[in-house]
């Protein structure tokens, strides 16, 4: 890679002021598990590298029953091991455990994954499925960006120059809520070829009052399958409904043609199969008896 000046700020404010000072010549690094590879290939060659991995104020997991708040610099293995990530947030643990390998999970961060916005990654899909709020901090005031608005294009987010992601909040749903993440890749830990994340809640009266079904990795950014969600919401989440919703997922995505990993039609079929598995597991977790 090309040489650079390595900077290690001790506070978020210091990090932001460095980014402000150096502008487009600066790049943020956290776990570096994606960035170092890009720098080695000279796809990016910043003059200044701002290492935020040591910012303790961005390294936390807080669960208060109402929701889950995770600092951007929280490392994957902490998420995997955290007792706060349970119940309706189990899909998050599921997804993190399938990222890379033990070594990657010892360094990579949730904030890094979301900011990098690689279409072939797992966490953006789940961030959208949970309707997470992503907090961005620059020289000015912090602002919250909904996951659905955060991912703009492949490797492109709504972060403005000089802004870093500081935390991700996963709002809790009240009512019996289940979630699941299903991933298709050739080997354990590979980047996903297709990923499906779902979250739904069984409200009073046993009807589903909230459903989110998201397909990742097949397009430039995660895709919300609103038709599938519409079939689930208001339903009793019977197996027949889940099958219909899974089929609908296949119709709602427009997978990018890929000479190596599969044609659009192949990815549609995979997405349908993953969606059914994910929906069934989420249903079990929501405590809905099989019907």
């Amino acid at each position: 890679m090309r040489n650079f000046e390595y900077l290690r700020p001790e506070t978020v404010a210091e990090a932001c002021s460095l980014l402000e000072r150096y502008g487009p010549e600066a790049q943020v690094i956290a776990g570096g598990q994606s960035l170092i590879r890009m720098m080695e290939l000279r796809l990016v060659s910043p003059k200044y590298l701002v290492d935020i991995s040591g910012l303790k104020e961005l390294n936390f997991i807080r669960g208060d029953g109402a929701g889950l708040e995770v600092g951007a610099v929280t490392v994957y293995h902490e998420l995997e091991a955290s007792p706060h990530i349970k119940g309706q947030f189990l899909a998050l643990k599921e997804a993190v455990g399938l990222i890379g390998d033990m070594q990657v999970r010892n360094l990579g961060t949730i904030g890094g994954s979301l900011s990098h916005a690689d279409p072939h990654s797992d966490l953006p899909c789940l961030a959208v499925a949970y309707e997470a709020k992503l907090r961005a901090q620059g020289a000015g005031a912090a602002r919250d960006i909904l996951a659905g608005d955060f991912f703009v294009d492949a490797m492109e987010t709504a972060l403005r120059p000089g802004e870093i992601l500081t935390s991700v909040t996963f709002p809790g749903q009240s009512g019996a809520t289940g979630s699941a993440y299903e991933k298709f890749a050739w080997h354990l830990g590979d980047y996903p070829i297709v990923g499906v994340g779902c979250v739904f809640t069984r409200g009073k009266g046993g009807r589903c009052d909230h459903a989110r079904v998201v397909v990742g990795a097949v397009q430039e950014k995660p895709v919300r399958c609103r038709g599938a969600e519409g079939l689930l919401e208001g339903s009793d989440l019977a197996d027949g409904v889940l099958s219909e919703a899974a089929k609908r997922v296949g119709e709602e995505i427009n997978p990018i043609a890929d000479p190596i990993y599969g044609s659009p039609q192949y990815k549609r079929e995979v997405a349908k199969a993953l969606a059914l598995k994910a929906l069934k597991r989420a249903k079990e977790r929501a405590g809905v008896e099989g019907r």
Partner: protein
Amino acid sequence: MKTVQPVRLTVNGVEYDLLVEPRALLTDLLRDYLGLTGTKRGCETAKCGACTVVLNGRAVKSCNVLALRAAGGTVLTVEGLAVNGLHPLQQAFMENHSLQCGFCTSGILLAAKAFLNVNPDPTEEQVRVAISGNICRCTGYQKVVEGILDGAKRLRAGR
């Protein structure tokens, strides 16, 4: 632009003060600056795990970590495993024929050691997941897994 920056770190119990290029990877620091060539460059694309070392108690691929990131930290390389004779994992690998050419072995030993520090009594499945970041061309992994499970047993018995 500074062409070198200082880094202080402890490797295998010894403290070093070095001046390194910021673009130096931890692998470069260990092999080229310190002469510890037990850590291998296998793929140079962070896929094979032959470069695995233990940084601050956690297994990492040293080719995917900047040397400066290790500042103030502690690194264990394969050279640091044999303290009073061979480490129980090394002994187990020998007796279980867990290596052939040996090129992946340093990385696997350190991945295994770091993993067993956190999970000292793993199932076979958990071991296989733990070493999924280490590629071996020779063994087909079966004897590697047996070596790790045997090493784990020895460690639990206090050698």
